[in-house]
């Protein structure tokens, strides 16, 4: 019984403590991204990947808060206010926010300029490329 409880606990905490990884299409030949490069794209300041192609960032509903907190140290309400300013002035398109990991991976596989973030447990490196890792603290 103790073993089952411990196993369940480990299973539960491991999903909570998992790293977030930024992924791209397998044809994305850009070098690994820096935290700053990821931040600039997800904050709408920069549009291009290192190869000059226009990046198409995708968001993940369940991980969005943790992702932005790591990148900017700002609460999600501030990020929402920031994006409201960019988006409703008509200057930038906010990263599309998808609700399921499978949907996110499918988008990444379909377009070589799409980047996204998912829980590292769902990464299959034969399907997508890891571009940046956010280590859980």
């Amino acid at each position, binding site marked *: 019984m103790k073993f089952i409880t411990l196993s369940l606990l480990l299973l539960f905490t491991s999903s909570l403590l998992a790293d977030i990884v930024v992924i791209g299409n397998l044809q994305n030949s850009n070098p690994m991204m820096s935290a700053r490069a990821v931040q600039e794209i997800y904050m709408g300041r920069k*549009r*291009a990947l290192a190869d000059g192609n*226009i990046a198409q960032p995708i968001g993940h509903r369940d991980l969005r808060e943790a992702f932005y907190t790591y990148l900017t140290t700002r609460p999600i*309400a501030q990020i*929402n206010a920031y994006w*409201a*300013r960019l988006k*409703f*002035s008509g200057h930038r*398109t906010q990263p599309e926010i998808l609700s399921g990991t499978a949907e996110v991976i499918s988008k990444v596989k379909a377009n070589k300029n799409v980047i996204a973030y998912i829980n590292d447990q769902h990464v299959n490196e034969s399907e997508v490329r890891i571009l940046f890792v956010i280590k859980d603290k």
Partner: protein
Amino acid sequence: MTKKLSLLLIVFFLSPIIQADDQYPDWSVSGFGSFGYVGTDTNSLGFIRNRTQTKSATKSGESGGGVTTDSRLGIQLDVDFSDSLHTTVQWIARDQAGDFFEQNLELAFISWRPAYDLDIRAGRLALDTFLISDTRNVGFSYPWMRPPSDFYSKIPVYHFDGADIAKQFSIDSGYLTVKVFAGYAMSDLFGDVGMFDMEMPLTGISLVYETDNWLMKAVYNFQHIDTEIPNESLLGVINNPQFNAVMPGLSALASDASLKDTNLHYMSLGTRYDDAVWLMHAEISYLESETAVVGDVLSGYMSIGRRFSDFTLYSVYGIAHGINKHVDIPTPIVSDSRLLGLQSSLDLAINNNTPKQQSFSVGARWDVYPKIALKTQWVHYWFEDNGSAYWLHLDDATEPSQVNVWSVGVDFIF
């Protein structure tokens, strides 16, 4: 032949869509809104955000404002036709003079990005004159109930039809965006003289430099006004031959009482600092005009806020100071009390159009949910020399020299 040509043209314009891969067109609908209530302690002056509003907030609420002053609901459709071709349409329900549908169509443009650092947009665009003039309707994006009115009342034009080109440069750890724009603005405005149409070709340039926590912006904007303010009664007096006979030189005042064919120049500098805890906004601008109807105005404000978790407390100081060149009204050649009264009235009508007001605010914002914020703000205004030019004058009573304005509201995005 004509049919073939039309077909070719249609194919040409739709080719970015037809050639796009399966993910296009990709569209999304989003929006923003604010609901608020504004009260004041006077019925002589009506508080408005700017001259686009037909209803004003007062002590009694009888002028219809209060709820409509800060309330608005905006909806936006974004469509990507390819990774370089995009369109945005935004419409806002709000208290607005003129045609409710057309005047509230805030954005309707096509943007083309031939390179990742170059944007070309054409259609209806937001007028980008000050730090947040293109998002002043999006309450959720700023801490206050509304942008500081000492500053933002000055330019009541929200949008124009035209084009802009923006090029981004990477400089050190920041980004510089240089934008030039040109077009034609058609805005319906409302004032003490009633509703009037303001049409003007305009052009300008803006420079924005943004780093991690800082944003700095400089803008120059030129506008040429094509339409007249409806002050026929004033112009009728000025051009009356009988009055000119007893007040020589009176007709020379016509240009000072007219808006048509005059030029406006705006120059502004603004900055914002936001390190996630402290929040600061400051702007200063100078408006130079060629008519006493508008006058020259120096204005500015500074806002400092401090976040405590989900709460933001802030204060704002604002000033709008008209520095009109005084127009001398001819003295009657015969001493008659009625003519002296007319001289005095003309002096008031021509030399009393610029603001001389200051304000101090304290307020709070509470982000109750990631997309919903509650706000409150108290503003104390003072006026010098009947300087309430940004307010509606609701009765003939002596203008108060100080007014308190308080407000509560909720802002949200979806």
